[in-house]
């Protein structure tokens, strides 16, 4: 979407660029506000509560009230904090996430820029996010923050690998379908991948990929069951424990923006984004509705996982990534390569991936049930066999002392 065309006026490039930046920031802030409100409401429903009700009609202005409160709050910097690391960290966490917005397709024609290497760009930029987190953790001069930051870094490193591998698998499938005369260079573009899902969403072709992507996404976003970096009962909030006011708000905003963007990415890659799977051509309006419906379904999934899962331990998280997800992702890539190289049909790809997903699920189920073992046994008490009462009898003594 070129704004100058969109608005019907000609303007210099730099104004155009500036307007786009403002547009992104404004839109994402609004979306983040809406997400925060939605999360509070949906989470409340999961938890037998009603959520915010007092601010505006059914509490819709709650996020704005929160933001106002954050803006007016005193911005405290601990005296022993590393000044530059501490003050720059929120921006380092914030800017990369907003850059991810660029290649996201909301409709067939609505995106900032359709990048050829869109997927690579997304993960390249999003990976920078962790620098901000580690800066915040180190700069705060706080032990909880340090632990949280180290956890976040370890987690980000170990989860981006299976996630990227699974993206490779998806792109392989896309490339084999999109390729024209052996040229598959378009398959790196997110919009092209979405455009290919007119009849078959890729979740049918790569169900294992969808699962691993969701897991990696939850880890990337520090959401339960992978929220150790911000675990309240262990590290009291983690890397942003020393932040207050709007600096803290920026971490928060970055987190919710990343949630929205990764969810859009997931629905683009696996659910067909703006595509209506039955019959190709739908109008612009319907496309945007489809994008938001698919996104919303995924968001409820993510929020539900927050309500219904406890937290894994850091070593279990690493073990799950390196010992389970990574091998399965590699097998998936190899399987895709072999099948596609021999010109296997799409349904073979889908079936193999589904088989792998079932194997993964079965493995986790089997291991956990074995770990769980037997439950408690019960010892029966019958009224007939109580022991003889021994102790609570009064024993007379000479009460000592005054």
């Amino acid at each position, binding site marked *: 979407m070129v704004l100058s065309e969109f608005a019907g006026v000609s303007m210099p490039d730099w104004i155009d660029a500036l307007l786009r930046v403002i547009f992104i920031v404004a839109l994402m802030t609004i979306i983040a506000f809406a997400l925060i409100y939605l999360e509070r409401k949906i989470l409340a429903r*999961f938890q*037998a509560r009603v959520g915010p009700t007092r601010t505006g009609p059914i509490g819709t202005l709650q996020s704005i009230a929160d933001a106002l409160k954050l803006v007016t709050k005193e911005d405290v910097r601990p005296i022993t904090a590393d000044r530059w690391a501490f003050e720059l960290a929120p921006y380092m966490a914030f800017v990369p996430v907003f850059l991810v917005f660029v290649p996201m397709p909301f409709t067939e024609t609505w995106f900032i820029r359709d990048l050829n290497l869109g997927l690579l760009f997304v993960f390249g930029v999003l990976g920078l996010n962790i620098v901000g987190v580690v800066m915040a953790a180190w700069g705060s001069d706080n032990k909880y923050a340090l632990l949280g930051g180290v956890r976040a870094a370890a987690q980000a490193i170990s989860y981006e690998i299976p996630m990227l591998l699974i993206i490779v698998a998806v792109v392989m499938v896309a490339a084999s379908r999109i390729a024209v005369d052996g040229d598959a260079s378009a398959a790196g573009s997110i919009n092209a991948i979405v455009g290919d899902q007119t009849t078959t969403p890729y979740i049918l072709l790569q169900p294992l990929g969808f699962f691993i992507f969701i897991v990696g996404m939850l880890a990337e976003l520090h959401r339960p069951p992978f929220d150790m970096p911000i675990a309240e009962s262990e590290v009291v909030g983690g890397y942003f424990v020393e932040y207050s006011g709007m600096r803290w708000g920026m971490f928060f905003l970055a987190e919710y923006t990343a949630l929205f963007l990764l969810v859009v990415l997931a629905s683009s890659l696996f659910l067909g984004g703006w595509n209506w799977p039955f019959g190709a051509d739908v109008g612009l309006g319907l496309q945007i509705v489809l994008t938001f419906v698919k996104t919303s379904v995924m968001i409820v999934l993510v929020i539900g996982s927050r*309500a219904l899962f*406890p937290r894994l331990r850091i070593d279990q998280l690493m073990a799950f990534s390196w010992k389970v997800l990574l091998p399965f992702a590699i097998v998936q890539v190899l399987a895709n390569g072999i099948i596609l190289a021999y010109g296997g049909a799409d349904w073979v790809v889908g079936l193999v991936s589904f088989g792998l997903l079932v194997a993964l699920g079965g493995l986790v189920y089997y291991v956990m049930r074995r770990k769980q073992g037997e439950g*408690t046994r019960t010892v029966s*008490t019958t009224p007939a066999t109580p022991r003889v009462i021994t102790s609570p009898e009064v024993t*007379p003594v000479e009460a*000592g002392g005054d």
Partner: protein
Amino acid sequence: MVQQTFEGEVLTEPVVVEREFETVDMNINIGPQHPATHGVFRMVLTVDGEIVKDAIPYIGYMHRGGEKLSESLDYRGALGYQDRTDYLAAFNSEWVYVNAVERLAGIEIPERAEYVRLILAEFNRLLSHFMFMGAFGTDVGYFGTAFTWTFKERERIQDLFEAVCGDRIMYNYFRVGGLAWEPHETFIEDSHWVLDQVEVGIGDVDDLMTNNEVFVARCRDVGAMSADEAISFGVTGPMLRASGVPFDLRVDEPYSIYDRFHWEIPVGERGDVYDRYLVRLEEMRQSVTILRQALDQMPTSGPIEPERMPARLRPPPGEIYMRQENPRGEYGIYMVSDGTDKPWRVKMRSPCFHNLSSLRPQVINTYLADAVVALGSIDIVLCEVDR
């Protein structure tokens, strides 16, 4: 060729100098102001990365001298302090105290009062275990879901208590010899209704937590304690039973009218955090069983206090150690009377204090996150630890 030297010596061969990457252990304060400590408990953890190398617990932030306060008032007046030791199971604490005084003074209490006491105490056990489920769920990492679900049920029980005695936490309802006043007219029907709801609530907690893979991964084999270890630390209650010792004072040293009911004692096998959770969950079901039987057997009319009670209570000189099964373990009151209207000595045996002492070996060489879960599984009430 340039001659290589190392610390002044001329070397003929290059030397590989091995350097170890030095790390230092870090001390982390868990508490007294920390979301995981259930009050003002402080635990200084020495951690090497995520591994806990040492743990030093500090208690005493809540010490109010409850024993001395109880000695400074007469036998009836000190009752209010008993609520304030174990505030999650106040009826149980009161019950131990009044039972101790009654046995010391040789007072017989009417059957109906005994039933009401037992019913309220068992309800309080349910309430306390619900509280445990919620707080423990938060420790393990449920974002409030376990907490709100269990608090919903806890509220129902508190509503019942409020209807009976007008208070939701500090009841002060038992009296030496009986009860303060009659429970309200629809007590039995209300109790049945609450029990129906609570049973659903127990099922909800079971569905939410027991078979959740992540929950199992976090709790199994964490903080495991053998039966011998548990006994050597003086651990009692669900923690001891989780280690495989079927010791329950309600059966092993029957007080009140527990021998009239049939129920079962859940016993764990590995003594880890998951077993403690399972034991408490099963205990809640057994409490419901006891309550149903008690409510059916309870006489609908009759006195709630003895016909004649002395105006001033002066038990004959003597001593007594009365112990009962509280939700957290063996709660005991040791009382010495010197024949005056004040006890000469009151000693409270707090189960949490002894259970908490077993924390250190449980958390050493585990992960930081396990330390939090192990602490949560002890189900401490700091007011009771510090008294």
